[in-house]
């Protein structure tokens, strides 16, 4: 990967963007981190093309020869399942002159023929034909060269969650994920046969920086002020004798337990109780889950869990089970791709409860997410305001102890730090770990 065209930001310039002095009670982020083109160029190189990136989900491509296309940073990528069922990730760029080889977002093809000059590749990425090779008067060396699709430098499948890196020089996926594997396990083990993606594409784009989504995913503080219209609808349903059909029915800051945790490599998590657990789609399956997984893991399944696997994957299991993939397009533009997951073979009533809550809460066409997203856009406008630092990372600074609750110990994870309290605490220190990783990655190779 080439840094030749890097914006040439100096170490000191990057350092000052995140003012991180916990012993002095200081944590602040400079607005340039959200609006600078130079910073964005560095993020593309050193984060999105420099570390492990979430690519998508194995259940999107269950059959042999299935494929989906995506991007790693700015780079076009295709993930394919070959004739033997093995998954591979390649650049979606022909070796001849780089035209896209796989044209669809999702498709199935035994052989991919490049539409430009007709080179062809099988579903394992091997070149299986160069049009007119015998007439091409190629020099001798050409025949001996490999003409297969260029594999992405690194590719890994952790229980159906697919990751890739354009940079070969990254730790193993096990090391990168660390304790976050426990949170992926909690998704994967909800059925003995894993999970499925509920059919239906949801994609949207907002006019704000990608890190606004990273922050919001674990932001308990915003909920009651950003979503009163959603909470109001649920309360009204309840008052009229409906169950509300939502895990958030009867929401109240003071009564809900919330804990946060930070992990190495920029990951974090928030978990806690639900206002209305009976509205969880998993509820009906809980007796069986308790039996299969034990009380402690079953309890973890019932917790609301919002998880960030840095830098572009968030998993939220509360109103439903959502996977979000972030794709930064510009300092002020972010593409979002989202999936509703369900345990394989879920009972029809539970599945419907899951889908309806998903649509209402998580969809960009729902009753809650648009209010998050428009807030990001308003913040993006606010970064133009000429004061350098905001005050949004300080709730919970007074807690600062490692999170070693019984639940955390039962899951066998070791967060760096964390907080426990009610929803009222609205801890923001949980956002420090993504920012620290951000700075660490941007500083790699900085002069």
């Amino acid at each position: 990967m080439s840094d030749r065209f890097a914006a040439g930001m100096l170490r000191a310039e990057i350092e000052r963007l995140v003012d991180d002095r916990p012993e002095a009670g200081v944590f602040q982020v400079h607005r340039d981190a959200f609006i600078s083109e130079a910073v964005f160029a560095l993020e593309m190189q050193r984060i999105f093309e420099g570390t492990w990136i979430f690519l998508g989900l194995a259940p999107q491509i269950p059959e042999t020869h299935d494929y989906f296309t995506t991007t790693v940073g700015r780079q076009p990528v295709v993930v394919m399942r070959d004739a033997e069922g093995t998954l591979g990730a390649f650049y979606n760029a022909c070796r001849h002159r780089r035209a896209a080889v796989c044209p669809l977002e999702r498709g199935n093809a035994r052989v991919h023929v490049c539409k430009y000059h007709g080179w062809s590749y099988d579903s394992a990425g091997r070149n299986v034909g160069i049009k007119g090779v015998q007439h091409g008067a190629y020099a001798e060396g050409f025949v001996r060269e490999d003409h297969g699709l260029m594999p992405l430098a690194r590719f890994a499948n952790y229980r159906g969650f697919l990751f890739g890196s354009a940079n070969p020089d990254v730790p193993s996926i096990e090391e990168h994920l660390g304790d976050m594997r426990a949170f992926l396990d909690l998704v994967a083990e909800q059925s003995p046969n894993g999970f499925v993606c509920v059919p239906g594409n949801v994609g949207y784009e907002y006019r704000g920086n990608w890190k606004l989504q990273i922050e919001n995913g674990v932001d308990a503080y915003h909920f009651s002020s950003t979503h009163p219209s959603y909470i109001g609808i649920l309360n009204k349903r309840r008052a009229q004798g409906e169950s509300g059909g939502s895990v958030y029915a009867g929401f109240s800051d003071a009564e809900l337990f919330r804990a946060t945790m930070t992990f190495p490599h920029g990951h974090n998590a928030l978990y806690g109780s639900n206002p209305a657990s009976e509205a969880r789609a998993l509820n009906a399956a809980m007796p069986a889950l308790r039996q299969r997984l034990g009380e402690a893991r079953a309890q973890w399944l019932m917790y609301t869990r919002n998880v960030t696997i840095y830098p572009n994957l968030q998993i939220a299991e509360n109103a439903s089970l959502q996977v979000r993939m972030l794709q930064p397009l510009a300092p002020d533009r972010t593409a979002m791709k989202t999936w509703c997951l369900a345990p394989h073979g879920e009972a029809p009533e539970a599945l419907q409860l899951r889908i309806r809550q998903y649509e209402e809460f998580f969809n960009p066409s729902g009753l809650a997410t648009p209010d998050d997203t428009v807030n990001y856009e308003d913040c993006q406008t606010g970064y133009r305001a000429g004061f350098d630092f905001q005050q949004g990372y300080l709730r919970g600074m007074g807690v600062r102890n490692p999170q070693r609750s019984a639940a955390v110990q039962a899951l066998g994870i070791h967060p760096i730090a964390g907080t426990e309290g009610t929803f009222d605490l609205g801890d923001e220190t949980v956002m420090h770990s993504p920012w620290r990783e951000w700075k660490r990655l941007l500083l790699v190779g900085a002069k």
Partner: protein
Amino acid sequence: MIDPTQEVAQFLYREARFLDTRDWMAWLALFTEDAVFRVPAWKSEHDITTDPTRELSLIYCASRTRISERVQRALSGRSVASIPLPRTQHAVSNVMVTHTDASATVQANFTVHLFDLKKKDTRVFFGHSTYQLLRVADDWRIRDKTAVLANDYLPTLLDFYCV
């Protein structure tokens, strides 16, 4: 005698007008109590989801009460995504009616221009809708409105006034 296709088209124009003038109580009154309002999600480039019990919709409201919640939210002053509400303009065209005395199945195209007042930006939503209408006295009521949105890569958000 009024041509029934003309009559149904007039009804759709009236619906569009209520949406654009934010006369949303009048818009709601066009629906039966058990009305379904749905914007299905796409499954692939050219396949749309068809079974909302097993597949995702962008919007799925299975009663007028559910539709009215969206209206109330938009008008509540407590949804930042709805402040200020955009200006919209619906164009309804290509109306095709399969008609019996008590009900009608209607196909129509829609193009909705939306002006986002905060961003000073115009967006377009387009697609086609299928309606199931029921005859009541000398008017119609919507029993089902399914709006298939062709451009489903959403600009920040989508709500009932966008289709």
